């Protein structure tokens, strides 16, 4: 017993806790009920009996004070129920005081009175709390210790003592009629004790009726249920004031109609608390149970001020209804179903692990909930007979605030409809939020429907597991994300009006047209630009054709410019048979101009008997050089042969770097001529004497490119020393080359520019090219075409200026206009 006193078994999780604790250290459930803790301060110094005094309802404390019974051996301090005060009716007294050794389950008859005892006995032997049986020496009443629901002082102790061990001895009617709850501080729920008492009372009444005896007024511990019921009805010590705060109880239902006889057999109607009778408004409609009519339900006469807790009333009546719905399956002893189920073998006995919430009804609170539901069903259905409800009806909704509530809570719940009405009226004053039309149109239809659907689903969904099993409208323990449910696919369908649809179609069309390639406009075969180009070509070509056809040479050649004069002077100053380095660096496209521009110079050099060493920085240069020599020689009837009179040294690679290297070592860069034999002309006369570029008598560069001319000037001219450098350039390169001629150092000593320079050259030396050089031939055509070109440019300028002025005037006039 000492060991038992030092340990407490949690009624929720069943784990062993220290006796000094009030709250289970594993599940945080209360180990010691507040009421029990208050009433047993001496037996267990460590008990927390005085801790919850403040939280105990006055009515309960008053009841307790009036329900003090002499303690028996079953009175324990830890977590057990404390005896009621003397004034507390038996039904409120602790059933544990009646003795845990004996079964206190009252039955309708002598055999029915043993139902509670057999229940407890079975629990002792094979119940789910078999493991939690108290150690040896500990009274059965002390086990399991009384516990209360956390934070709820009105929770009957029967919940905590449901697995309390009972003594195997069968209860006797006399024993059952006793009401020892007040004196037995057992861990037995009050309600169970009360029910037991009631049963005992009924049983005793039945037996007495059968035997012609009256039901003892004071049931013993085993008849505590009937006893407390009887006491409740006639006990003046009941704190009516406290009870008046409890739920309202109709008083029109006679006790005979109560079906409480089913599980309170033998209990006379007088023994049934009036509150139980009057707690159910539909009591008159309760179908008569299959209980012999001789068994009258204890009459409960209770004034308007006497009110029993609704939870208790609902407990009794609901159970009566539930049992009335079905054929009462009682055993030989007349046990109701809910108790009979407890006698069935528990799955725990078989070692089968049953998920929480799916245990046998007797091991959970489902049977209690059934009573509540039955009560609720009756209350909601109004006058519907109880038989309409089926026993196997699925538990759809269980209000957590019905059946097991203390009176004050149930009273509040009873007033809920009115409160709802009031809230509805309040809600009427509050207008729902009005969404703007554009926002309303954006709401996905399916999402809103799903939200509503899910909300309704939650309201009707009944929790099937956990401590809240059977309750309706409970927030799911599992988050939505953990539910194995495929998320719905929302179709983004907006509420689009007609005007919006039209606008959307327009926008879509615009976007589509942007991506589509635009069809190009058909170009005419003959366009204005094409005609204009042909006109210009004809304008330029016709004078040339006419001049070529007529062989016109009427236009005088230009005067001799200084640069051409210097060139001719330099050439005239050359000795006979000079060694000339001739660089042919123009492109084939302008070979006509270059040949015409250089013919006079080359002709003069040929007249001098000069040996021409030709090089080129262009790969096509050697070919052009060959053609130039052949053309000039053939025009002027010079007999210039390869290698003997001239040497084509070929191509100088590397651009400016190659010219620099050529200026350093010309023999290494161009060792051989491009003749079929690849003659090494540097070993032959007159080139044998030339070891460097300064050994040449003259360096003449023929180029149409200003860059090439600059490269020759920059790379080669510094190494020429006194050797003159003359250049025959194209008209397009003249602006870039002339500054070198005008430089103070005279980097270019002679300059012949295009056809004009050659014409002047020919004009100065009429003995050149037999008096009719190419410049002379082309000069008239050149002059005519150049004149036409100039006229075309002038006309174009005038037209452009005129058009620009007209456009500007139109724009200014348009701006001035309002």
């Amino acid at each position: 017993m000492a060991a038992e006193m030092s340990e407490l078994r949690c009624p929720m999780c069943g784990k062993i806790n220290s006796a000094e604790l009030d709250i289970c250290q594993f599940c945080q459930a209360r180990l010691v009920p507040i009421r029990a803790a208050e009433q047993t301060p001496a037996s267990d110094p460590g008990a927390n009996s005085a801790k919850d005094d403040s939280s105990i309802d006055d009515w309960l404390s008053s009841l307790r004070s009036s329900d003090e019974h002499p303690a028996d051996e079953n009175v324990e301090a830890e977590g057990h129920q404390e005896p009621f005060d003397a004034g507390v009716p038996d039904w409120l007294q602790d059933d544990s005081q009646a003795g845990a050794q004996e079964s206190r389950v009252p039955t309708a008859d002598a055999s029915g009175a043993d139902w509670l005892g057999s229940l407890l006995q079975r629990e002792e032997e094979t119940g789910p709390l078999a493991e939690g049986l108290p150690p040896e020496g500990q009274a059965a009443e002390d086990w399991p210790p009384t516990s209360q629901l956390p934070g709820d002082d009105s929770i009957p102790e029967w919940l905590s003592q449901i697995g309390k061990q009972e003594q195997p001895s069968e209860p006797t009617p006399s024993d059952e009629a006793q009401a020892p709850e007040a004196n037995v501080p057992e861990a037995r729920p009050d309600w169970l004790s009360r029910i037991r008492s009631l049963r005992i009372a009924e049983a005793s009444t039945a037996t007495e009726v059968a035997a012609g005896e009256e039901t003892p007024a004071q049931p013993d511990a085993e008849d505590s249920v009937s006893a407390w019921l009887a006491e409740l009805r006639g006990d003046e010590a009941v704190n009516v004031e406290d009870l008046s705060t409890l739920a309202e109880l109709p008083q029109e239902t006679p006790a005979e109609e109560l079906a409480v006889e089913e599980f309170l057999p033998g209990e006379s109607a007088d023994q049934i608390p009036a509150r139980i009778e009057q707690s159910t408004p539909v009591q008159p409609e309760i179908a008569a149970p299959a209980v012999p009519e001789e068994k009258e339900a204890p009459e409960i006469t209770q004034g308007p001020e006497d009110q029993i807790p609704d939870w208790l009333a609902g407990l009794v009546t609901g159970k009566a209804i539930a049992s009335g719905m079905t054929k009462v399956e009682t055993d030989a002893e007349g046990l109701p179903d809910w108790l009979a189920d407890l006698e069935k073998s528990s799955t725990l006995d078989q070692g089968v692990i049953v998920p929480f919430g799916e245990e046998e009804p007797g091991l959970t609170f489902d049977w209690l909930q059934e009573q509540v539901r039955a009560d609720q069903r009756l209350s909601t259905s109004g006058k519907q007979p109880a038989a309409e409800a089926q026993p196997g009806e699925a538990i759809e909704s269980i209000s957590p605030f019905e059946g097991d509530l203390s009176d004050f809570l149930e009273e509040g719940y009873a007033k809920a409809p009115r409160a709802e009405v009031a809230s509805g009226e309040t809600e009427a004053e509050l207008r729902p939020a009005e969404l703007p039309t554009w926002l309303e149109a954006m709401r996905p239809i399916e999402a809103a429907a799903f939200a509503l659907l899910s909300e309704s689903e939650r309201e009707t969904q009944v929790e099937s597991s956990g401590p809240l099993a059977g309750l309706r409208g409970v927030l799911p323990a599992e988050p939505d994300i953990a539910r194995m449910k495929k998320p719905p696919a929302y179709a983004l369908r907006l509420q689009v009006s007609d005007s919006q649809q039209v606008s959307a179609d327009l926008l879509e069309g615009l976007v589509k047209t942007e991506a589509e390639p635009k069809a190009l406009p058909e170009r005419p075969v003959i366009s204005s630009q094409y005609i204009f180009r042909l006109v210009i070509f004809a304008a330029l070509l016709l004078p040339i054709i006419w001049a070529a056809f007529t062989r016109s040479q009427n236009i005088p050649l230009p005067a001799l410019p200084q640069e051409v004069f210097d060139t001719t002077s330099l050439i005239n100053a050359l000795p006979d048979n000079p060694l000339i380095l001739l660089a042919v660096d123009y492109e084939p496209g302008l070979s006509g101009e270059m040949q015409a521009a250089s013919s006079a110079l080359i002709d003069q050099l040929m007249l001098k008997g000069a040996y021409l060493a030709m090089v080129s920085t262009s790969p096509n240069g050697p070919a052009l050089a060959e053609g130039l020599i052949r053309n000039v020689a053939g025009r002027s009837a010079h007999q210039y042969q390869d290698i003997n009179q001239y040497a084509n040294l070929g191509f100088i690679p590397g651009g400016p770097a190659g010219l620099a290297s050529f200026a350093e070592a010309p023999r290494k860069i161009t060792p051989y001529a491009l003749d079929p034999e690849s003659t090494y002309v540097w070993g032959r006369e007159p080139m044998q004497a030339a070891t460097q570029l300064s050994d040449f008598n003259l360096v003449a560069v023929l180029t149409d490119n200003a860059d090439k001319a600059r490269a020759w000037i920059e790379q080669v001219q510094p190494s020429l020393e006194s050797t003159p450098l003359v250049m025959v350039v194209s008209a397009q390169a003249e602006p870039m080359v002339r500054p070198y001629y005008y430089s103070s150092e005279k980097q270019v000593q002679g300059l012949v520019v295009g056809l004009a320079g050659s014409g002047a050259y020919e004009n100065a030396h009429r003995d050149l090219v037999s008096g009719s050089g190419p410049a002379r031939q082309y000069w008239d055509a050149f002059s005519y075409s150049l004149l036409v070109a100039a006229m075309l440019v002038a006309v174009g300028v005038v037209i452009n200026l005129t058009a620009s002025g007209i456009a500007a005037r139109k724009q200014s006039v348009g701006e001035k206009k309002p």
Partner: protein
Amino acid sequence: MNLAEMGMPDLVGTLLGFALTLMVFSYAFGDNALFRVTIHLFIGVAAGYAAVVAWYNVVWPQLLLPIIGGSQSERLFVLFPLVLSGLLIFKASPRLSRIGNPAIAYLVGVGVAAAIGGAVMGTIFPQVLASINLFDAEAIRQSGESPLLMLLQGVIIVIGTLTSLIYFHFGVKPKLGGTPRRPEWMEVLALVGQVFIAITLGAVFAGVLTASLSALIERVYFIGDIIFPLFTAP
């Protein structure tokens, strides 16, 4: 030009040239296949001729011949360009192009050095000196020209030179809260420089036109020399 007096090679060449010239002239009527054929033909012939010249004028005599028949010193001298030429070949492969980077680097380095050195010594310094000498009294006197005219000419040249250089100056100081702009005096001088630059570009355009006309005239005369004798009495 008398076709009858030409030999067969010259005759074929002349006629071929005549046809190709006409094909080129067909571009005046728009892009066509004849013009494209002529262009492609010219590019092919030019490339082939360049390859032959490069081989006979550069590779064979300067790279391979010294190795084959040259002396020891010549071979050693040729070894360096031979190695660089071998590395340059790897530039043809995208994967192995990195191997030819040393040769490219050498070529670029030498070319840039030659260009920069020539530009500085051959162009900038002489031209600056020439600009200075425009105001040399002795030179003006020796030229025999009117000194005032020479001075005016010198001033114009200097102004044109300076303003053209100022036009190409785009460096400005950063300005907080505004768009960076050149100073006003610089903007005025740049505008003057724009005038000189425009005149220069006009002159260049005129030279190009002149050169093109000269080329056209030569070709027309070539065609005329072939066609006109056919219509004239011998």
